[in-house]
């Protein structure tokens, strides 16, 4: 028994089944990421002043990843075009590049971006203690310039394991972010494109002065919660897409091509649509988290 319109289009709609199926699925994905982005907006609008950080993510790396994903969007549509033009060898090349790009994206994220965050530390200073840490926050200088005040001190800890020690009364930084090491340097006023190196400085902060402190885990702030959730879910979608592409790059694809090349072309078109959507989401994620 065969299902009609699996490969050929139904005359009145002009569509084959999987095309409708994938667009319906993408519609639900729009609602999913729409819900997530709505959450992002409301959390950001509702954040206390100073509690929504800027400039914590590595912009050059993020830009690179964005370029990689855009490139893969081009190569996947070229792979589909190759199939429509019955150039199977070309398809394999373009699809192979697409898969490599996707893998590169994930590798950069999982081996560099995320771990770099997990080893970084930040402590939000209580309102009443802000004056005490003026050398690292520079709020008088910021007030003069009309810029919003800083409430957090970030850097690398001397000993991350000390966080587990309940009896410890202080946090000890071995290095500070440039923004806290030189708070009155005009370069620290706004985030810069190139990440500024950490400054070696041993700084001790009393736990009693701290509102909340954590490594840059999801729990650190609404910002990181949203960042890890959205990029994590996005990453899972990238992985899903890669699995599907790999499946059709293996001999399964060649067999399907031999039986009915249009069928494989349709499958790649549908998978490509999913991949473009994933790219689409990233086009919004990148400025919202890395730049703004």
């Amino acid at each position, binding site marked *: 028994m065969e299902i009609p319109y699996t490969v050929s289009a139904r005359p009145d709609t002009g569509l084959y089944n999987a095309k409708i199926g994938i667009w319906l699925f993408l519609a639900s994905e729009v609602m999913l990421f*729409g819900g997530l982005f709505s959450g992002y907006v409301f959390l950001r609008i509702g954040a206390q002043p100073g509690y929504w950080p800027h400039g914590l993510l590595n912009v050059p790396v993020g830009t690179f990843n964005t370029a990689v994903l855009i490139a893969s969007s081009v190569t996947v549509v070229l792979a589909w075009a190759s199939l429509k033009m019955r150039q199977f060898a070309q398809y394999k090349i373009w699809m192979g590049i697409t898969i490599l790009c996707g893998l590169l994206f994930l590798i950069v994220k999982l081996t560099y971006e995320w771990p770099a965050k997990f080893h970084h530390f930040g402590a939000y200073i209580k309102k009443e203690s802000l004056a005490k840490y003026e050398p690292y926050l520079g709020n008088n200088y910021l007030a003069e310039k009309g810029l919003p005040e800083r409430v957090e001190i970030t850097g690398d800890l001397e000993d991350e394991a000390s966080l587990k020690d309940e009896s410890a009364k202080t946090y000890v930084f071995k290095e500070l972010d440039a923004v806290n090491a030189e708070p009155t340097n005009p370069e620290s006023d706004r985030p810069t494109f190139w990440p500024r190196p950490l400054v070696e400085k041993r700084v001790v902060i009393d736990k009693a002065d701290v509102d909340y402190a954590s490594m840059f*885990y*999801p729990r650190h702030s609404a910002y990181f919660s949203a960042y890890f959730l959205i990029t994590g879910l996005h990453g899972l979608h990238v992985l899903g897409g890669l699995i599907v592409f790999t499946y059709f790059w293996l001999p399964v694809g060649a067999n399907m091509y031999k039986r009915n090349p249009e069928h494989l072309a349709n499958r790649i078109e549908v998978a490509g649509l999913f991949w473009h959507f994933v790219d689409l989401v990233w086009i919004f994620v990148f400025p919202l988290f890395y730049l703004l």
Partner: protein
Amino acid sequence: METSTAIHSHGPHDPHGHGGHEDHHELGFWQKYVFSTDHKMIGIQYGITGLCFLFFGFCLMMVMRWQLAYPGQVLPVVGPLLARIIRNDGMNSGGVPGVMTADFYNSLGAMHGTIMVFLGIVPIAFAAFGNYVVPLQIGAPDMTFPKINMASFHSFWVGGVIMLLSFFSPTGPAKSGWTSYSPLADLADQGAGVIFNGQTMWILGMVFLITSSLLGAVNFITTIIQLRAPGMTWMRMPFFCWVQLITAFILLLAFPPLEAASFMQLMDRVFGTSFFLPHGLTMGNHLVNAAGGGSPLLWQHLFWFLAHPEVYVLILPGLGIIAEVLTNNTRRPLWGYKAAVYAAMGIGFLSFIVWAHHMYLTGMGAAVSTFFQTTTIMISVPSVIILTCLLLSLWGGSIRFTVPMLFATAFLPEFGIGGLTGIPLAFNSTDLYLHDTYYIIAHFHYIVAPGTIFAIFAGVYYWFPKASGRMMNEFWGKVHFWGTLVCMNIVFFPMFLQGMAGMHRRGFDGGATYDLAKPVIHWNTTISHAAWLMGLFQLPFIFNFFWSMKFGKKVGNNPWNATTLEWSAPSPPPHGNFTEPVAIYRGPYEYSVPGHNVDFIPQADPQGPRTDAGAHGH
């Protein structure tokens, strides 16, 4: 009267080759019954699994009703048994086996709601009936994506098992209401870090259930768009297929924001994030160890964005089933078919923009609450239109009270009560008083219980012969009906009185704490007794269901003399459904067409019975 099953080849080219081109190898047990990709088997899988969950959810309610009728007393037999099965002291309050704790009562409430809605009604009304009937009614050989169909079923039962397993967690199952409001749901049972606890498992289960619904929705919509047989235009589609299409759209677009919110709540619990925890939150007199900066209202908005359309998911398939049963048993067409179809579309659309009427008490200002009051009142219009069409379909009919018809007829006033009692809830002024009282419980149960569940029973008795080739026993069907009908009303009507007195809906003590409940609290015992009696009246149904599969009266293709396409296929239909290619020649409810000597003409019948005028079929 036997109908002519005249379906013949149609069209110059058949994109799927000539019908009957089937796999002839026999499928093994696992391929046939467990990993089936046939929509009929999947429909039955959903149906039986869903009915089991429905019964389980019903049992949870029966245990709850003990606590309400006899607070603090030992539940005989069942109580000590439960105390031994569940791992914590939920049924061991104060060291007395068989006495419920408040926490366990809350768990029962949360799980009763969750299981009935997501594991009972949606899988049965939407997935089971939809899967089985829709492809047959549109003349398709199967769904467009049979493997995804199978995946959706397996995702469903996995989610269900996770929910059931949560009963065995050390702190018990979810207890923050089926609505799972943060911050309570974020923090209940120890806070972040532990996975094997009720609330976290609830969230994980929901993710599987949402996935199942999404996959199913994609399948339904694509199938209805693409696989309608030649001649099956949109306006010739049975009303049941229309509502399934609209329900699928609702599921497709409304569920994902809840999925997003579920991920956020999961992260709050497992990774200690603060999506829904505000700054400075205290619990038990000390500050919660979280960064804060979150918004409890955000959860409510994202939750209700799904949960309101969800209630239309619960009722629309039921309305569709009723339309089929009503037309068949009045021997008349559906009155106002077009109006009903457009009204259903209107409901589908409006359902997405009314959700904050569940949030009138969250401190919304005049502008936003006016908007939601307006849209909520607007949505009552299409609902009334559909009910009116169904009622008017009775007018002038030759009504035969088969068991499905009994349930379908009873549905009408019961759904009417449920719908009309929603009107005071649409306005924030009256809702201010009625919110979170038993009035709400009565309102929505009237719609779902003697509403949708009656439609489900009607559907089961109606389509059982198609799926099995045998009829269910009529006498026991009537016993089931009358017993359930009477008990339903004794259970739910007094709840309106309790609610209007101000009795809170989630009180573990049955309302005893507050004086305002004094005049109405006595109803608790009556309601509980009626609920337990109703449980007894389900036993004939369960027995009838399984007994008739083997010993019921055998029937042919069309025992009900119905017009819609599924009755042109054999009972039960083979793999591929129709033994010959299908084409449609007329509308879905050609009953009692004037000038014909037979009171129905099947959709697929090209000529129709010969008339005195000698004309062709209508």
